[in-house]
């Protein structure tokens, strides 16, 4: 059952050093900035962060990186006009990078949430990013074996939650939130508003409350 927290600090309590943290957002759309700020304050270090990007500008994920708390970033698109924090750390050898095609990033987290032990897919076959991975010919096409990506914690942003943890999102800010919510042991959500059960249309709930552990309006 989802717990509704009063503060972002309460929501991120207990994240341990060495955790794998899934961080939602595509650039800043859907980035749970208040939760990431609270995590910086909370102090967990030696983190592996899984996110589409490696931080934009100086806020959110970029600030967590700048604070030196992240050992490794697993992402699809680290290099952008405003990814100077990551680039500086990476060039200085202070942060590890695992580059994963965006579809594999999403599907590997879905697999973690859906009880799929591994899956075959053609993305990246024959490229550097599949080097060393097991392959198999299926229907005449080379497929690469991919394993789930699980989080100890997911920090995601959504638009509204009800008190049972059901979530709806807004436009393309939906992006990785619903997938990460299924893939982490503890899913923590930042929303604009918490409403009573029965307020959200049951046909339109995107993330059912079963996947949500903590919610904070921030």
């Amino acid at each position: 059952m989802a717990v509704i927290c009063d503060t972002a600090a309460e929501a991120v309590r207990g994240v341990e050093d060495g955790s794998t943290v899934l961080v939602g957002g595509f650039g800043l759309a859907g980035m749970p900035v208040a939760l990431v700020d609270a995590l910086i304050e909370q102090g967990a270090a030696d983190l592996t962060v899984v996110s589409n990007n490696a931080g934009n500008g100086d806020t959110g994920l970029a600030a967590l990186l700048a604070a030196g708390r992240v050992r490794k970033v697993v992402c699809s698109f680290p290099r952008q006009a405003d990814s100077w924090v990551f680039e500086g750390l990476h060039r200085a050898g202070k942060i590890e990078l695992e580059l994963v095609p965006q579809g594999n990033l999403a599907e590997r987290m879905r697999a973690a949430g859906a009880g799929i032990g591994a899956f075959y897919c053609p993305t990246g076959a024959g490229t550097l990013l599949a080097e060393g991975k097991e392959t198999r010919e299926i229907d005449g096409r080379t497929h690469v074996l991919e394993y789930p990506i699980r989080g100890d914690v997911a920090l995601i942003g959504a638009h509204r939650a009800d008190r049972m943890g059901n979530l709806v999102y807004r436009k393309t800010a939906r992006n990785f939130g619903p997938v990460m919510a299924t893939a982490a042991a503890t899913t923590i959500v930042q929303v604009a508003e918490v409403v009573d059960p029965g307020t959200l249309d049951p046909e339109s709930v995107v993330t059912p409350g079963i996947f949500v552990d903590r919610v904070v309006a921030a």
Partner: protein
Amino acid sequence: MSLDRHRIAARVARDIPRGSHVNLGIGQPTLVADHLPPDSGVVLHTENGMLNMGPAATGGDVDPDLTNAGKAPVTELPGASYFHQADSFAMVRGGHLDVCVLGAFQVSVSGDLANWHTGAPGAIPAVGGAMDLAAGARRVFVMMTLFAEDGTPKLVPACTYPLTGLACVTRLYTDLATFDLGPRGAVVRETHGPTVAELSGRLSLPLAGGPARH
């Protein structure tokens, strides 16, 4: 005294933690819902695609588009959500259900489950979501009578019926006793009438005995 199926259901309900997400198998396990306290916060999942399912629908509330996994008309509670089959079974298989309660033909002392196929020649089997639930729920409870109508034990050293899942059942609720199952074999948690020694004899099984007898 031995329990009727309503009292077995009540006994199961007592062990379901507050706020759990629970799937109740079709048939007798459905009765468990009637024994959950109104403030339990338990959220029922039905694998045909819904969370926070409400009680059976009657009269004007019957909606052919709103049924449970047994295809009986049901209702929705505030905070419900609907989703498609792949998402529904992602929940089941991904380990997101706290408890699932199933019926059984046979259960082995190590927790193997047989509940989909008698194996009889010519029988048409039906599995539905049973294998997914057995493999995916965090805890699998079974409720059944301890003996078949002909007196044959249904808790056995090893299942003779085709399996639904291996080593998946952690607790067995019956009319005569409640058991924990696992690598150590069957451990009696409590009995309803017989002594542990009597049960052990009737089942022809070694049983580690719990203290409780009701």
